């Protein structure tokens, strides 16, 4: 459903992505792997239009995403959980969640979606009126995922969903990714930790210095020397 081909991205004069290509099929969970600074986040930001692409093709179900502004992505069925949650900290949990359905003007539909995300994340209902900025990191991540689900996406991009979370919370968020997948939503997430990623994903792409150096299933990749070289510099 998502195809990226020959993606080049620059920050100023500095090229950060070099001809990155990847695909995500319907109902797949795909991991983007790589060490710090390898361009993982930039791939997701470029798909979403948050960082302009210089060259390359990005299509989603036949739509040319490079022509779609970021705020139009939810209309196509793409949503994103930004790095470090990025909640509207001064607003309540409920306001954050409802803003996820900003483009939906049907009150009954919004209520159905809210009940759906509350069933996935009971914490949303419990903390409804609390200021989002005062929640713990793990709780914020749940609200951020709930907010992104409120647009009823078919593809969810998650930028560093495990960053800065305690191991116990990482496990919880992993469970949630499985749940989201179980709802028939395709997921692309990025993460440094290879072991963790393949516990959750069908396939992965390994980035190094802004290039895809390896792709395949977890088994393929874990047995590859490339992974060891990239991470250990061996």
């Amino acid at each position: 459903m998502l195809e990226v081909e020959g993606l080049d991205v620059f920050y100023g004069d500095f090229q950060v992505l070099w001809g990155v290509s990847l695909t995500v099929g319907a109902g797949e969970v795909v991991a983007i792997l790589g060490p710090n600074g390898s361009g993982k986040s930039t791939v997701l930001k470029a798909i979403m239009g948050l960082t302009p692409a210089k060259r390359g093709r990005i299509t989603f179900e036949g739509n040319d995403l490079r022509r779609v502004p970021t705020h139009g992505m939810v209309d196509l069925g793409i949503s994103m959980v930004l790095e470090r949650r990025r909640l509207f900290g001064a607003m309540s949990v409920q306001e954050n969640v409802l803003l996820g359905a900003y483009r939906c003007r049907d009150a009954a539909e919004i209520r159905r979606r809210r009940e759906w995300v509350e069933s996935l994340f009971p914490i949303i209902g419990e903390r409804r009126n609390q200021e989002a900025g005062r929640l713990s990191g793990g709780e914020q991540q749940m609200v951020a995922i709930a907010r992104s689900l409120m647009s009823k996406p078919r593809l969810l991009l998650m930028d560093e969903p495990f960053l800065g979370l305690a191991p116990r919370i990482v496990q919880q968020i992993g469970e949630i990714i499985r749940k989201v997948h179980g709802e028939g939503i395709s997921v692309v997430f990025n993460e440094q930790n290879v072991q963790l990623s393949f516990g959750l994903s069908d396939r992965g792409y390994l980035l190094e210095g802004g290039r895809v150096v390896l792709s395949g299933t977890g088994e393929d990749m874990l047995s590859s020397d490339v992974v060891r070289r990239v991470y250990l510099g061996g």
Partner: protein
Amino acid sequence: MSIFIEQIINGIIIGSMYALIGSGIALIYGTMRVLNLAHGEFYMLGGYIVFFLVVTYAVPAYLAIPIAILAIFLLGLLVQRLTIAYLLPREEWAFATIAATLGLSIFLQNLALLLFGEQFQSIPYYLSGVVEIAGLRLPQQRLLMLVVAIVTIAIMTFVLAKTRFGWALRATSQDKDAAAVVGIPAARIYTLTFGIAAALGCVAAAMLAPIYAVNPWMGLPVLFKGFVVVILGGLGSFPGAIVGGILLGIVEAVGVQVTSSEWRDVIAFGLMILVIWVRPWGLFGKPQ
């Protein structure tokens, strides 16, 4: 003693006007991080529209003022579209918008001078009676200013807290990217916010014009007072600007009472410098 209380009440009334001007500057800064140096000129043009409608065309004030507010709102949308919206996506937007709004301010002042002349024009009071409450004599005109300010601030508070646009505005000012991801078109929010801010300035102009005078330069001192207000309240905070405006009005009124009226601006800017010195994030902002 009753003169002292009257002065405080007058301070609150003038302060509520400062609040309207400051809250416009704060809304624009809070959402698009632009310091609108042409804010005073929307105030000035609002004053002229009211003057022409009320004095030249004898339109009753209760019709003239809403027409002026609507006109300045539309002008705000247009100006934002033609200048700020065009500059914001650029890398050098921070300086570009300051230069552009400064240029716009000078342009509009001189345009007004060319079109309307340099005479100071006056607008008669909308209400001429005096009300006596508990031994205090208050001109109805001043009470009207207070009522208009309270109604305007109440409407704005409702819009920000309860409407879809208000939520989108608050979300965009907190995190532009996160707002875009949920589907909020920041560009449209910016344009509307600018129009609303200009309209708030026009409300203040309509109410202050009968007390001061309408002239091409009337926006400048008001812009400076607006800056004092947003620095007191914390840059970009709407409630901060409201409280900051009223506080400034009271401090000025009391200060002038114990010194003399030449000291008004010294007191205002002294207060601003004091706040920058001890609490640079404003009385209601948070340190960063």
